[in-house]
């Protein structure tokens, strides 16, 4: 099955906003999505990502800004007139309709001829590998199968845009990985333009062409998974990307990309993520796997090991600096709890943000 070439190039959000009374759930969301792109809206719960999706779907009205398909403004359209497909968090399959009828629902609403509906539904069933289940009711399917039906129902209408609202959050861990691969496969085959809402950075990193990080209803950063993972632009994005160790202090020196932050009794060097000058307060953030036991090499951070545990390939430990800052580190050998060791931090992988 191929997506009929929809006559559009991009979908554009132009300062889209939504407020509930005094609360601004979405503020000036601007984004343009190219045809065929897979966009993940990533953020913690309450960041506005679901609100954004519902606004795009038309299930919530916007209170400012516009939504365009090329130059056609669609934010005043009713949801049924936008022609999108959507996969809901709890699937929202029609319990009284067979799998076949569920998938064919959108085509039937568009009054397509029966023969066309049948062939398209068959193709969609094959795409999600549910050929044998067509006449079953959703209640007779497993969670993963229900999810496939929901996906088939959304893409069978060949929509310019498919919206997915945390589609994997109701599945158990193993099934989640399986369905993630499935969604990637279907996307590679169909090239359907997709907006995918999730709070799980692994999902976003593995699926998306571009990730949009939302916080408090505003966009914090837009970038490819690689850009976001390696160079988060703000501290909160970094925290979301696994930068769990943080040292607050002041910038004492800066040379090009490299800056040194003094945090109490010691100082650490890192790469500047935001423009910072000596004297400004800053936070240096680094992932636990970029902090290792330095085994006496100079320039390490002196810490006391509090706990250490074996994780199979390596050890993971918790240590505390003399100033009481907790650090999580990785090591290739054990260190006795209570012992004083020094940790080295890779300056190329540590990022310095404005505090």
């Amino acid at each position, binding site marked *: 099955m191929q997506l009929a070439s929809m006559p559009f190039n991009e979908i554009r959000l132009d300062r889209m906003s939504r407020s509930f009374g005094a609360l601004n759930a979405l503020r000036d969301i601007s984004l343009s999505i190219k045809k065929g792109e897979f966009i993940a809206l990533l953020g913690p719960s309450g960041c506005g990502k679901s609100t954004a999706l519902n606004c795009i779907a038309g*299930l919530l009205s916007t209170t400012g800004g516009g939504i365009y398909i090329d130059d056609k403004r669609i934010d005043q359209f*009713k949801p049924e007139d936008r022609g999108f497909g959507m996969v809901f968090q709890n699937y929202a399959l029609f319990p009284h309709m067979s799998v076949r009828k569920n998938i064919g629902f959108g085509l039937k609403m568009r009054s397509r001829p029966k023969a066309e509906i049948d062939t398209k539904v068959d193709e969609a069933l094959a795409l999600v590998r549910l050929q044998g289940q067509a006449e079953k009711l959703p209640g007779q399917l497993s969670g993963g199968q229900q999810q496939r039906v929901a996906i088939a129902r959304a893409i069978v209408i060949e929509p310019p845009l498919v919206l997915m609202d945390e589609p994997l959050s109701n599945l158990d861990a193993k099934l989640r990985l399986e369905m993630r691969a499935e969604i990637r496969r279907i996307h590679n085959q169909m090239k359907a333009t997709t907006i995918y809402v999730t709070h799980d950075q692994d999902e976003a990193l593995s699926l998306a062409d571009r990730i949009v990080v939302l916080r408090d209803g505003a966009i914090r950063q837009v970038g490819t998974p690689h850009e976001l993972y390696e160079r988060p632009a703000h501290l909160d994005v970094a925290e979301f990307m696994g930068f769990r160790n943080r040292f607050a202090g002041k910038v004492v020196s800066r040379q090009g990309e490299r800056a040194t932050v003094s945090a109490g009794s010691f100082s650490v060097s890192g790469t500047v993520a935001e423009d910072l000058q000596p004297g400004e307060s800053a936070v240096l953030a680094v992932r636990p796997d970029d902090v290792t036991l330095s085994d006496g090499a100079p320039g390490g951070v002196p810490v006391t090991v509090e706990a250490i545990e074996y994780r199979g390939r390596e050890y993971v430990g918790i240590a505390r600096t003399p100033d009481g800052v907790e650090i999580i580190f990785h090591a290739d050998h054990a260190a006795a709890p209570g012992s004083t060791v020094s940790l080295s931090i890779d300056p190329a992988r540590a990022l310095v943000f404005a505090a």
Partner: protein
Amino acid sequence: MIRDTTIGAKLWITAVWAITIFFVLNVLAIIATVIVSSLGTRWLGTWLPNAFTLNWYASAWQEFQLGPVLFVTFQIAFTVVALSGLLGVTAAYAMARRDFPGKKLVMFLFLLPLLVPPITFGIPLATVLYQFNVGGTFWGVVLANLVPTVPFVILVMIPFIEQIDPKVEAAARVFGAGTFKLFVHVLMPMLIPGILASLLLVLVRTVAMFELTFLTAGPTSQTLVVSLYYAVFASGVRAVQSIDAMAVIYMVSTLVWLLVALRFVNPTQIVARGNQSSNAH
């Protein structure tokens, strides 16, 4: 929700609300008529009575012997409440906690008295009660009223008991509580809100139950609503305002309990409880 701003949709919404408001206005007006009339001196061919008075309440109290009638009414109602609570809660506990052969049949047995209207089963019931010489007595009325209230308590309490984790009971047993102590010290405190709500509704139902009481009551076991029926039936004998005063007293004696009950339950549940379980089979 999905907004719809076309003119057709707006017209439709307006029409639906207009019907709803019209209905509610009429209900309120019917109730208000009774209240206004009971307070009026003379009310003939005008919007409102000529003057207002409280005298009709005194005369209704005298004429219809409302003192004894109210006493009997609440005697009956509280007896029904106590007995249906005792029978209903214990049965609901067994129904909620055990799966036994024939459970569906027992459930159906409990549903029937709620589904068959009182007047249909009331006539054969009254016949039997008169046969056993309890017809026309206090206990005859109580027995008849228990027929729908026991199943009602059971059906309200089953989901309420089901939501209590059986592990709490298991824990109590492990720490040495026997069945009786378990009931008194562990289950009762947790079930109090549900029991209270269901029994208040039983109280309302019994005070307002006309058909069964009408069919089984004798002169000394009439409740207020049956006396009211006879008064309206024989209207022309007494002044309308006096009957209306009695009607207001009846309203107060029902609505007080309803208002208390509504603190615990949603109005929708009052009608919907019984058949949610009937829907399940």
